[in-house]
Every structure is written in structure tokens, then in C-alpha cells.
């Protein structure tokens, strides 16, 4: 392949999500979401319960049917594929779920769990298989003597390592990690986050890292997208979003995470969102945050917020925000 062509390919995003929509009956779980992930890039997708963040992940993996928009992996529209061709594309994208135990078959040994994707995708040679399983275990930091254990005989952190190893078995280009450390203790979280960061660097993986708050994704993400009620309300490079969050929802999310320091914690100003998020089967007209927005209250409840849904607009290089009034 000529070098120029290679360079051009590099510039293409690995994953391109355009105007994605997912409906469950009347519920608009995902409502017009667009973003790209470059090769080797990690996008943190942050949102609270019911924001639609996991549904975005599942729609990318073609685990739920989208009702609108497209998902392109390496230039191929996944929605147009089925059967064998979809299965081939699936090798390129793998998933790690939140609950490692719930995602491992309790009656399979660790070695069999790691071998399963290889078997499904046609590897038959026993020796090659055993070698590959051992390589995978080392890659994710599991001791060889764990191969014969069952999921209930290992810790939660180790189970998550198995799930990560299984996801890597087919050498995917993209990992969708759906809250992969949320169920682990903090000290173990750091171990697994380091593992993911190392793997990303050594294997050149792209990652969609889904999380419920802005603390976990901070160290691993290149860019961060914040979702609220099925929509992306802010998307920006990592350092910008923590230093200069623009959307009132992002601001309150940031202010809600407690910091481990009593003096700073006492001095902090919280932007507390009133009430609960509205139900996605009956979202407010206009901006999804309008019913709870601190900025809107501050501005004397402008009618604009309830009339028109703000579009995700670029305000500075790579910094996108969906708000009629957010300014730096």
C-alpha cells in the first residue's frame, strides 16, 4: 500500500456515529447523537442513570436496533449489514460490561471463557488456542494458575480482567467499556484503569469509555462527551471540559463529585440540580435541562429554553456545547 494512502486512512475516524436515535416505544432513549472516535483515541461518554449512555454503546455494537442515524466502523455502515458480514465486523469491536461476574458464565473455567471467542470465530488448533489463552492471561495480568478456576473462585477485579481479556481475544480495534470499574473498590479501580490505559497504549486501541460521573473517565479520556436525557449536551477535549465546562449540566456534574479534602470540600460551591431528571417518555419541550437548569433560573427563566432545542455548536476549537446561553 502506498504511504499516502495509509496517511489518508489514519485521518479517517475509526468510528463515526451520525444522528443516532434509539426508541423503546415512546421513550426516546437516544435522540440525535453524533460523534467520532479516531484510531487510538478514547472518548469518555458520561451521563447519569437514564441518560442513554449505555444505549449508545449497545446501538454501536448492534445489540439494540437503532431507529435512526448511522453507525460506521472503518467506513462501513453497520446498520446495513447482517448475518455473516455483521459477524465479521463484530470482531473489530468488543465490549466490557460493568458487572464482571454477571458477564462471565459461572459454569465455565477462566481458560474456556477466554477461548470462547476464538472458537466462535473459527480457531480450531488446540495448541494455538492454549498459547493464545495464556498470552491473553498474561496481557491482562492474571496468573497462569487461574486458568482452571471458575468465576466464583476469583475476585471482582480479577473477573474484570478476564472480561477484558475476552474482549481482546479477537484483537479488536474498538472497545466499548460500559462502566468497567464502577462495581470495584477504589484501590482495585485504579489497578483496572491502569491496565486499560496500558493496553490502549500498547495495542493502539480506540475506546468508548462509558461512565456515570466525571471522576473516573478523567485520566483515560482524550475527549469527553456529556449526555443528558438522550442527547449530548457538551463535547470537548479532556482538559478543556474540566477547566472550562460551559454547559450548566456539566458544571453541576463537576461540582457534585466530592473531593477527598475537608478544607476544599467545605469551601466548594455546589450547583445542586433541583428534583429528578424528567422521564424520557415525556421530555420537556426545548432544552432537556430547562426544568432543572440553574443558569436558566439565574437569567430569569427565558422562554427560549422551553421553545427551542439548542443544537450542539462548536464554540471554540473542538469544544461543542448545546445551550442557548452558555458563554465562557
Amino acid at each position: 500500500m502506498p504511504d499516502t494512502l495509509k496517511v489518508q486512512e489514519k485521518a479517517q475516524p475509526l468510528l463515526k456515529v451520525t444522528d443516532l436515535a434509539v426508541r423503546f416505544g415512546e421513550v426516546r432513549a437516544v435522540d440525535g447523537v453524533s460523534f467520532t472516535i479516531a484510531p487510538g483515541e478514547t472518548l469518555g461518554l458520561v451521563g447519569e442513570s437514564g441518560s442513554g449512555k449505555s444505549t449508545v454503546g449497545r446501538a454501536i455494537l448492534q445489540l439494540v436496533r437503532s431507529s435512526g442515524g448511522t453507525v460506521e466502523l472503518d467506513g462501513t455502515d453497520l446498520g446495513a449489514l447482517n448475518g455473516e458480514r455483521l459477524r465479521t465486523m463484530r470482531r473489530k469491536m468488543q465490549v466490557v460490561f460493568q458487572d464482571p461476574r454477571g458477564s462471565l458464565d459461572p459454569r465455565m473455567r477462566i481458560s474456556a471463557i477466554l477461548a470462547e471467542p476464538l472458537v466462535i470465530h473459527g480457531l480450531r488448533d488446540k495448541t494455538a488456542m492454549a498459547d493464545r489463552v495464556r498470552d491473553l492471561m498474561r496481557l491482562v495480568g492474571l496468573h497462569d494458575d487461574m486458568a482452571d478456576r471458575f468465576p466464583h473462585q476469583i475476585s471482582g477485579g480479577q473477573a474484570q480482567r478476564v472480561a477484558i481479556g475476552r474482549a481482546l481475544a479477537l484483537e479488536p480495534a474498538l472497545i466499548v467499556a460500559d462502566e468497567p470499574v464502577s462495581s470495584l473498590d477504589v484501590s482495585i479501580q485504579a489497578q483496572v484503569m491502569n491496565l486499560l490505559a496500558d493496553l490502549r497504549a500498547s495495542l493502539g486501541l480506540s475506546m468508548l469509555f462509558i461512565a456515570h460521573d466525571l471522576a473516573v473517565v478523567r485520566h483515560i479520556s482524550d475527549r469527553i462527551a456529556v449526555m443528558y436525557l438522550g442527547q449530548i449536551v457538551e463535547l470537548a477535549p479532556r482538559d478543556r471540559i474540566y477547566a472550562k465546562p460551559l454547559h450548566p449540566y456539566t458544571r453541576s456534574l463537576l461540582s457534585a463529585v466530592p473531593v477527598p479534602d475537608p478544607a476544599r470540600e467545605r469551601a466548594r460551591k455546589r450547583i445542586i440540580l433541583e428534583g429528578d431528571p424528567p422521564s424520557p417518555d415525556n421530555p420537556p419541550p426545548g432544552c432537556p435541562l430547562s426544568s432543572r437548569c440553574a443558569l436558566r433560573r439565574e437569567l430569569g427563566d427565558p422562554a427560549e429554553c422551553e421553545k427551542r432545542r439548542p443544537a450542539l455548536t462548536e464554540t471554540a476549537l473542538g469544544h461543542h456545547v448545546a445551550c442557548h446561553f452558555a458563554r465562557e
Partner: protein
Amino acid sequence: MTVSGPARSPDRPLLHLDDLHTSFAQGAIVAVEGIDLRVGAGESVGLVGESGCGKSAAAKSILRLHDPRNTRIGPGRILFEGRDLLQLSDEGMRKIRGREIAMIFQDPMTALDPVMTVGDQIAECLDAHERLSATARKARILELMKLVGIPSPATRMRCYPHQFSGGMRQRIMIAIALSCRPKLILADEITTALDVTLQAQVLELIRSLRDSMQLATIMITHDLGVVAGMTDRVYVMYAGQIVETAATDDLFARPAMPYTWGLLRSAPDLEAPVVERMVPIEGMPPSLADPPSGCRFAPRCPYGREICERAAPPLAPNPVSGPEHAARCWGTQQVKGGGWLIGHDWRAPNSDTPTSGKAGTNA
């Protein structure tokens, strides 16, 4: 003795766990091993540690909530206003639960009864302890629902738990806990299952209720951010034991021992600079069925010395910060072969090489 005892903890605390032990499976697993914990009236105390460290087992022991068929609480004493709760009959304990000491659990969905209206659940504790007329009962339910910020209580009291959001359910749990005006609330990971914005609301609510009702609280949590914002004093637990205790400000300013350092290093801090790699605590906690004979943290401790594996350290005052700050670590104690961590800056890179070498397998 009148001199000792933690700084802000009064001589006669509201609650005093005195060398409390709790074991399961005919004593094979000692989940709580000789903990000493005091809570003064109106004081807020944090009990912090990771899964399986015994923090919830200790809290449940206070209210005798474990299955009695496989649990042994004792030896030790649970002194509440000077009275040993372990000496009470089951009937006697029933008068304590809810009325004197109440507990709020982590998961409001499993702790609430799905087939009972929330109004009736809020009143259940009242019904057990007080005789109220129907009008007074309803007035009290409405008052409690208003207190915890549930909108339109008159209609909502007739709803069932599934008709409420997670945050609202946790408010209902708090209303139930407050219903009989207890003096002490045990809050067991109450915000863990909630989204951060709801967590902020619930913590704010607990703070204001605590101040207005003179409530003492034990915040049981793994989250040092919650400890920092919500407590006066803190106890750190590891593998069934208290390994460090101090006034909250002091613990964060001058943490004494390596396990606490590890917890602080791995606690997410949105205001700290971004780092490429986080600093985990390597390895994992020991099995409580067969804990290490020396210091229980020694197999994972990057600062360990020879003495750590040979002998178990006591919980002793930290020479740097005074008697109210104690740590279970030879490195902080002026004994032969110990004391090498006195005044050590925990943020400094560790020049010590661990004696025991490898931190065991990855978790």
C-alpha cells in the same frame, strides 16, 4: 482515666463499641476483630474501608441485624448511653431499633417493601413504638415526607416504591429512619447507588437534618470524598480491624499509615492534576478466614520492614499528631525496629523497597 479518648469525643459517648468482635460460621471468619469506636451525642463519625473490611458487619452488629444462626457478636461491649446492648433480650433490642438507633441502607429498592405504600412504611416504625390516632399518624407521615423533601406528600404517601425514582426512594428511607426521632443514625453507603447529582442532594439533606435534629451519625462509606465533607472524626478499617483513627481534618492533613495513604492516592480528585497512571494499592485484602499473623496490611505494603510480618502492631497514638490520632502500624511507633514512617511525607515517592517483595497477585 480522664485524659485519653479522642479529642472531640466526650468522656461518656453516646455509643461506645468496646473491643467488639463479630464472627461468622462458628467463629471461622472474624469479620470484626476488637474494634473500639466512640460516637458523641450529635457527632458525625466516618467508618471507611473497602468491601469486606468489616465496616457493615460492625454496623449491623450494633442493631443485631445479622442472622443469629451463624453469627456470634462478642466478646466485647456495645455501650449505648452507658448500657450494654449485648445484654438486652430480643424484646429489649426491639425497643432500641428505630427509636434510639436507626439504620439507612445502601439500596433503597431492596430495603423497601414493594407491596406496601410508602406512607405505611414510614409509619411502620411509629406503629411499633408509639400509639397514635389516625389523624396524628397521618400528620406525622406528611411532616416526615415534607422534611425529606418529597413533593406533594398527601398524594405520594399512597404510592408504592416503584413509583419513585432512586433519589426519592432514598429520601423515603431517610424519612423512615427519622420517624421515631432516634439519637443515632447508621448510614451504610447511602449514596453509593445514587447518581452524583442525587448524591449531592441526599448528602445536603443529611447535613441539614443532622444540624436541625441534633442527630449523631455514623457514615459508613468507601468514599473519602464523602468522609471529607460529612464527618468530624473518622475510623479507617482494614481486614476487620481499625487501622487508623483521627479527627477528619487531621486524618487528611497528616495521614499516618500506608493503607490510608493508599486509599487517599486512589481516591478520585477532580481538582488534582491529570496523571497518566493512577496509583493503586497492589494485591488484594487477605482472607478473613486466614489473616496474616503480623500486620494484616503487610503483604500489600510497599513500606514494610521485617517487624511487620513477625508481629501484629497495636493501634497506638501517632507521635506526630497527638493521642487522638492513632495508627496500627509499626512504622509510626517508637519501638525497637519500628518508627521509620514517623513524619514521613506520604506524597513523597517511596524509596523503601518492600521486604516481602511482591504484593501478591493482582486483584
